[in-house]
């Protein structure tokens, strides 16, 4: 019954709109306004541009200021300060251009709307103007690019020798976090060794792998360089740590990396934001299938001393699961046994 009433209502509404439309058309034919070059609507449209400019411009300023703290993510890395600064410089430059060009674009229609007694000015070209507005944007862009290029070179240069290595392996649909242990060297890996108890495909015949361990949380020290070694084992993924201003694709068959220095511990950030629940997070930003939106890992940034303490407490893969080294050669097995006994 309801559906029927709604249908009748819609039908009525449509027929009313239809009638108004037809009457409008007929009136304009009778008045002869359809023969004119520009009808009365011309003025309305010209006015609308100005209203649009003021209305949406006001909305933009209001919302941008009101929401600033919401969309402006807290920052916790050294290079992030540089890229954020570049972002806001670019925002200032483009913002000015945006506003000026839009004022002109919407004010000209009002100012130069059709008048029967006026003739448009015949102004086909002016080489001086063309040169100016080729050269000026070129200079401005060059300055922006040079800033970006310097930052980019710094960010992508090789990581310092002493950087703490963490391996992130993306798979459908999670990240496996592997640490190199005390030697700070990750053991070799081979994707063919992957199975349920060896998610990262670690090759335990490499003795560097003996002290490797995994962790449910990415724990890193504040103020010291950290190198993410990034891999994927099935499809493309992408490591995105928004607060660190960090992003790098994880590519099957091609290890990638990204190094950075965290500047605030999780505790410090919690205090600063007054949010005891706050966590640094890692998300996936390269579409990878059904669970793309749920590949969460937490980064826990701690003081360096605390980090070292945590590191010492971790149990290597082979301690938790001695079966991993069962099939090794006798010498390697002995080495592994020593590592296991050290951690007991």
């Amino acid at each position, binding site marked *: 019954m309801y559906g029927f009433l709604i249908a009748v209502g819609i039908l009525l509404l449509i027929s009313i709109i239809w009638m108004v439309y037809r009457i409008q058309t007929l009136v304009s034919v009778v008045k002869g306004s359809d023969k004119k070059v520009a009808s009365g609507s011309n003025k309305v449209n010209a006015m609308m541009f100005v209203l649009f400019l003021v209305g949406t411009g006001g909305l933009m300023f209001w919302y941008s200021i009101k929401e600033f703290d919401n969309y402006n993510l807290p920052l916790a890395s050294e290079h992030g300060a540089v890229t954020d600064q570049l972002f806001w410089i670019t925002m200032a430059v483009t913002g000015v251009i945006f506003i000026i060009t839009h004022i002109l674009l919407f004010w000209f229609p009002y100012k130069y709307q059709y008048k029967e007694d006026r003739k448009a000015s015949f102004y086909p*070209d002016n080489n001086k103007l063309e040169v100016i507005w080729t050269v000026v944007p070129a200079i401005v862009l060059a300055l922006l690019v040079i800033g970006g290029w310097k930052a980019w070179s710094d960010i992508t240069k090789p990581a310092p020798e002493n950087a703490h290595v963490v391996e992130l392996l993306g798979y459908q649909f999670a990240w496996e976090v592997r640490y190199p242990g005390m030697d700070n060297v990750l053991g070799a890996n081979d994707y063919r060794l992957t199975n349920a108890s060896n998610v990262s495909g670690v090759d335990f015949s490499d003795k560097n792998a003996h002290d490797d361990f995994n962790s449910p949380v990415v724990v890193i020290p504040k103020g010291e360089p950290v190198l993410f070694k990034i891999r994927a084992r099935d499809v493309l993924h992408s490591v*995105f740590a928004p607060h660190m201003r960090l992003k790098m694709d994880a590519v099957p068959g091609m290890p990638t990396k990204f190094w950075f220095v965290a500047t605030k511990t999780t505790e410090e950030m919690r205090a600063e934001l007054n949010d005891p629940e706050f966590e640094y997070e890692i998300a996936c930003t390269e579409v990878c299938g059904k669970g793309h939106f749920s590949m969460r890992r937490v980064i826990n940034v701690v003081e360096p001393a605390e980090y070292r303490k945590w590191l010492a407490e971790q149990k290597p893969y082979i301690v938790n699961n001695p079966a991993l080294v069962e099939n090794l050669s006798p010498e390697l097995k002995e080495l592994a046994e020593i590592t296991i006994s050290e951690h007991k």
Partner: protein
Amino acid sequence: MATAHTATHSASAHDHHDDHEHHDNFITKYIFTTDHKMIGKQFLVTGIFWAIIGGLLSIIFRLQLGFPDMELYWLKPILGGWIDDAGKLDPNFYLALVTMHGTIMVFFVLTAGLSGTFSNFLIPLQIGARDMASGFMNMLSYWFFFLSGVIMFISLFIETGPASGGWVVYPPLSALEQAMPGSGLGMTLWLVAMTFFIASSLLGGINYITTVINLRTKGMSFSRLPLTIWAFFLTAVIGLLSFPVLFSAALLLVFDRSFGTSFYLSDIYIGGEALPNTGGSPVLYQHLFWFLGHPEVYIVLLPALGITSEIISVNSRKPIFGYKAMIISMLGITILSFIVWAHHMFVSGMNPFLGSIFMFLTLIIAIPSAVKVFNYLTTLWRGNLIFTPGMLFSIGLVSFFISGGLTGIFLGNSAIDIQLHDTYFVVAHFHLVMGSASFFGLMAGVYHWFPKMFGRMMDPRLGYIHFWLTFIGVYMVFFPMHYIGIAGFPRRYYSWTNFEFSNMYTDLNMFVSVAAIITFGAQLIFLFNFFYSMYRGRVASLNPWRSNTLEWTTPLHPQHGNWPGEIPTVYRWPYDYSKPGASEDFIPQTVPLSATPESNLPHEQELVKLEKAIIADEEEVLVANESKES
């Protein structure tokens, strides 16, 4: 010599036309037609059909994003198993929706629907040709496109769903059936459909290029071509050079999927087994894909810019400012569009040094774009503006081109792109600068050339309402996405509540979704106006916008062959609007300079002498031809 040749050519084309004029039946006129005007309309109507499909898909995923708690049982009759028992959209199908939305909009609507419609319709009419260089190839071009569309449409309904790896279909996701259901049959159909689409684009493109180079009427030198034609011409060149590379990317993907090769696959453990493939590189695919993918942006945008240049000039009653600068900018964009592709890949793991190179090249391409914007503004300045719906949509396009173009400066900067890459900032950027701008170009073109297509006028008032709802609506949909993007919300997410940093802005996302639904609804006004006016609109006058270009010298309903008599000769550039001294505020291209001594500029007085010699020459040839005939 050249002159004589052109004259004989047009005369013989005319004879030819007379032979064929009366043999059209329904099938040859409306279906397997070789008339460029009808083919253009076929592309347009097909494009509109796909735009509705693409728009509807986006509405469904906007429902998910804006109202994540909504129960979607009512969609079950259409979507069936893709709505689960709890009334929720399946996450795999969500990805299928965004993939199909992107593919359909980029290729079927804004490439075929825009370029296909207006290149076909306008090139012969504006350069003064009877038809395209090869009417048959042109017909094939449409039917390949149609076939491609049929296959893509079928893929929407198969059990495992259509391709779902994003419109870029990056392998290994798109190569491995185990990775997601959409990578099975749906992906195969996607590849087959795209192959036909590429064939269609190439057939069309070769035709556009050949026609513009060879079939211009007498006097229509390249420096007298309307900017629309320049834009279509350069677009076709870009397409011809870049679509084959997409084909190569797709072909290698077919090999990897079906024949066990490892072009893109290496070191993969999936579904509990290690695959034998080694040595391939997923990044190779990205390079090949974006070698088309970036020029594709300009394939979509340049025709819209060309259309806008023409419409803004006509309705400002002023010559387009900096005609030569506009052409040079478009040439610059054409060349640069081929050497900026890797800015889509700053964080793909490629060598950072390449990133620096592509950052420099990318920001160079902003310069010709800036020049175009300033030229549009100067064209409006001191004009006598008439706000036809076409003009409104053109001004809207310039606004989107500025808004979306400026955010490109952020994304082209590799250091800033680290944070913004694959967030909603990117979504906002390309939907404004490429999606909405090109869509507005398409709309402007339809409103402006509707009288030439169907001999009737669209209702301007409905056009105004359509414009304002759409213009405001588009900004309400895409502007808020900048905030969401700066906040770091990733693209192609089914829901954002799994993360603390993105567990907010539910209100803004709801607002965006509502705006999207209203904007989509506003397109119904256009659909009504379009189809109603086709049959019942007011009969148009011959030159309703008082425009200079050649298409308005044809009869109201031009037959196949366009002009009943001789093809008109062109004596001037297309932008003599409001010329000082002239009695009217426009002088069509067919008016000789010698007929307008009162408005000629000094250098044009010189041309008058030359022109007189040519006219005398032409008459001689005509007399000769006539005596031959009798």
